[in-house]
């Protein structure tokens, strides 16, 4: 099952790019471009999570937030705004927003916080999965599956594999992998990364994926599936 995210954002460029990012991360996403009666639309669409910008033309994001909360007390709402005023944050939380993030945010952080909100709101649902060429990564369980076999990964290994899988087979630089780890509060250094990648490679081999995590000298790593 894939989660349905509604994106309420007035800036077209952000709407398009964020929608693309969310789709690539395994969510389905709708992004309305008109905001009259948007709260009813969201409720009717059966959304699992709402990403809400506060600055909207012609209407107030905080009002939408309050409206959503009134009709649907369980729906996770994440406020994303460029106003980084502490009072805005306080007001949004009082109106029932579950999380607050200011622009420009790190895309990885946005995804991590969304995953946490979804996990908390829908504990029974299967956790989000990434799939590529038969390899499946269960982000909630931290489990990798391939051809019926499955293996538990450590948190760091799962993060590295996730980053490589969202890279869609491109070469991912060492610094990009380290950044992904840092964004989940694992402030590893170069040596630790090497150790983690080696362990991950061994585990993938155990799953039957020989020689799929390749080292590209001077460039980074590549997942060849």
């Amino acid at each position, binding site marked *: 099952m894939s989660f349905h995210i509604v994106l309420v954002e007035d*800036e077209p*460029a*952000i709407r398009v*790019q*964020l929608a*693309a*990012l969310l789709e*690539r991360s395994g969510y389905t996403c709708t992004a309305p471009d008109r905001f009259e009666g948007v709260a009813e639309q969201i409720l009717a669409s059966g959304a699992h999570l709402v990403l809400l910008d506060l600055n909207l033309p012609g209407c107030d994001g905080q009002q939408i937030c309050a409206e959503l909360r009134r009709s649907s007390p369980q729906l996770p709402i994440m406020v994303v705004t*460029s*106003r*980084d*005023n*502490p*009072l805005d944050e*306080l007001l949004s939380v009082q109106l029932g927003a579950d999380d607050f993030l*200011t*622009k*420009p*945010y*790190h*895309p990885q*952080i946005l995804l991590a916080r969304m995953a946490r909100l979804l996990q908390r709101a829908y504990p029974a649902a299967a956790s989000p999965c990434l799939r590529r060429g038969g390899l499946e990564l269960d982000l909630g369980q931290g489990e990798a599956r391939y051809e019926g076999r499955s293996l538990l990964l450590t948190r760091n290994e799962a993060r590295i594999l996730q980053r490589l899988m969202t*890279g869609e087979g*491109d070469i*991912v*630089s060492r*610094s*990009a992998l*380290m*950044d992904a780890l*840092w*964004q989940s*509060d694992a*402030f590893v*250094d*170069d040596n630790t990364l090497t150790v983690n990648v080696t362990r991950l490679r061994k585990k993938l081999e155990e799953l039957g994926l020989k020689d799929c995590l390749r080292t590209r000298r001077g460039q980074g790593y590549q997942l060849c599936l």
Partner: protein
Amino acid sequence: MSLKRYLKDRWRLLLGMVLALAVSGAVLCALWVTWQAVVFLEGALLLCFILPLLLDWGEKRSFWDQVAQGVEDDERIWLLPNDLAEPPFREGELFCRALEGVARDRADQVAAARRDNREYREYVETWVHEIKTPMASARLLLANHPGELSDALEDELFRLEEHVEQALYYARSGAAEQDYLVRELSLSAVVRAALRRQARPLIAAGFRVEPVEWDAAVYTDGKWLEFILGQLISNAVKYRGKNPVLSFRCREEEQAVVLTVADNGVGIPPEDLPRIFEKGFTGQNGRRLSRRSTGLGLYLCRKLCRRLGMELTAVSEPEQGTEMKLCIPRGQFHAVARETL
């Protein structure tokens, strides 16, 4: 105002009196009046001169003494026009009018300057918030199109964001209004947030970060604190040595929580150390190692710290490293919280 000074200012009057006494004395002597009569008349005349002078001195002294006292008190001088009682003589009245006029004019000018300043600050805030939207979409674009070019652009975008952020906090640092929110925070969570934000430059410079395995509750504004830590981390990156290491240590004291940000970088020469928090001071390191040092970062940090009641100090050993100590007072909230526990 002393009597001596009062009389000295009126020497022409006194000269006239002496002349009047001398002339009348001479005339009286020439008229063959008895010496007793001369002495009596001269004495009476002298009394008639001196009495009104003394009365006048008494009246003016109380007014001018009040003025002199007001002028000496620098902190309350702006209250002088209000404090002065209206005197019953013309120069005093005029003086009061003049003082009120000057004060009003200054007050108008200060108010106008404050308004301009506030409007400019509001413009900077709006501008910063506007610029964040295109920066956010640029970030998403880069995340959707990974590659070498995107990677390089992301570095530039990060630098851009840091400069924009500095402009915002610079505008906030001088404001009279309170735009921070003091809350109970986990200090280690703020440290981790600052590390996440500064991940790119730290990773690119090959830093090893010692694990943050402590925690402490502090009462301050999280965003301001994160910005200050970001500036300190960015300095550690700029002035790093070989095999750079960054560590965060925390010590809880009775009155404060002291956070130490330590690096093993090039350190600060002892002659520069007392001046690093001055605005525009770049020092030997700033000129030698970082061509773009503006001398703003630490100045801004200390200013923001002081507005939040925190204190920032530096200890450094050249070629060994630098320790920045951030002292976050516990304040009364904490005391109250502990009493109720």
